[in-house]
């Protein structure tokens, strides 16, 4: 079916059904880490890496679960895989880029509770994507996440320099911004369709 072609999957995940702006996944880091561009981008990349690892492992685990007909253990298995993938990323960052590790702080282990990662694993299972499709889907989702978080960071940095009413400072403003971004991305609807 044309709809499931790799290009469509990628574009769909990045623009049309952006994980943050359309599917509401990954909001905690989206609001929490998007204050500065130089933390937002590495956070996005770390998240994308975890997405890739978890997505591929989830694909493999799902095959095993289906084979033994123990699908009811799927959620527990997926979350275990994600927690391990985050552990792995933490260790790698700590060893090779310690400055980044420190600047990301508490948000790094919080990637485990990032809805976007579990959401990715669950969606690719529901849509019954094969290995290659899952891989592209994960890359697309990660790219979409990075796109959203970087856009948000850019906007918020600019906003820091302007006069914002005190009642709306902080989360309220970020959410309004998010709403505007989401509205803009709705323009991509139907792209890649017929």
């Amino acid at each position, binding site marked *: 079916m044309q709809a499931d072609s790799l290009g469509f999957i990628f574009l769909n995940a990045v623009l049309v059904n952006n994980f943050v702006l359309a599917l509401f996944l990954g909001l905690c880091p989206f609001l929490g880490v998007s204050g500065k561009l130089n933390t937002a981008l590495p956070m996005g990349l770390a998240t994308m890496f975890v997405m890739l690892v978890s997505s591929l492992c989830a694909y493999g685990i799902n095959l095993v679960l289906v084979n033994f007909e123990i699908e009811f253990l799927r*959620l527990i298995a997926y979350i275990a895989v994600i927690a391990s993938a985050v552990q792995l990323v933490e260790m790698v960052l700590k060893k090779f880029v310690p400055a980044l590790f420190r600047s990301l702080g508490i948000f790094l282990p919080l990637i485990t509770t990032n809805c976007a990662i579990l959401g990715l694993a669950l969606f690719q299972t529901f849509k019954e994507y094969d290995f290659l499709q899952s891989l592209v889907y994960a890359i697309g989702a990660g790219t979409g996440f990075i796109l959203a978080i970087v856009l948000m960071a850019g906007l918020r940095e600019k906003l820091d320099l302007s006069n914002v009413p005190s*009642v*709306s400072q902080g989360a309220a403003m970020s959410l309004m911004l998010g709403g505007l971004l989401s509205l803009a991305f*709705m323009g991509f609807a139907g792209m890649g369709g017929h």
Partner: protein
Amino acid sequence: MTRRREAQLDWNTFSEGIWQENPVFVMLLGLCPILAVTNSSINALAMGLATAFVLIASSLLISMLRNYIPKQVRIATYIVIIATFVTIVDYVIQAISLDLYNALGAFIQLIVVNCVILGRAEAYASKNRPSVAVLNAVGMSIGFALALLSLGTVREIFGNGSLFGYDLFGDGFEPWVVMVLPPGGFFVLGGWLLLFEWFRQRKAEAQGELAAESSKPGA
């Protein structure tokens, strides 16, 4: 952080989850489901109930086991326990109503990464007795459900002209469709937060004036 004194079985433990430490409006946790399933009041309510079940059940179990879980593996253990209850709720909802299950979709399973539940387990359930933990969990659940409903009702009324499925305005009503779409979710939550903040500022100002008026130093 200083050691929290053991919480008591009292009104404060119950009510702080509803207002002062409302998980959504004050602590900004668990935002993903808030925006995603609140395009109608029924979905919001169902989500609130499902989350309440997981929160209360996991708080109870974790509090009962708190002295047997070693520090090093506590997060992993909490996550497994939470995932267990989420899986249970998932199957129970399927058994109750397939329509509701399809409406809520993947977000039932996403309850497991709801920061509210893990956060409460870590900060509260692991440090207090079961009765207190459950009381707090109930309060938090109510707070969370209220937040869900406050979004669900507003979005449904403006975006669909109905409330809990009952038509409010009749045929002439032109729905403000963006309300039930993703941007609407962002805007409505932002609006509520704005309202909250304004309220808090007014309250702080009023208290500040009171303190300034009374000539005693400190409050």
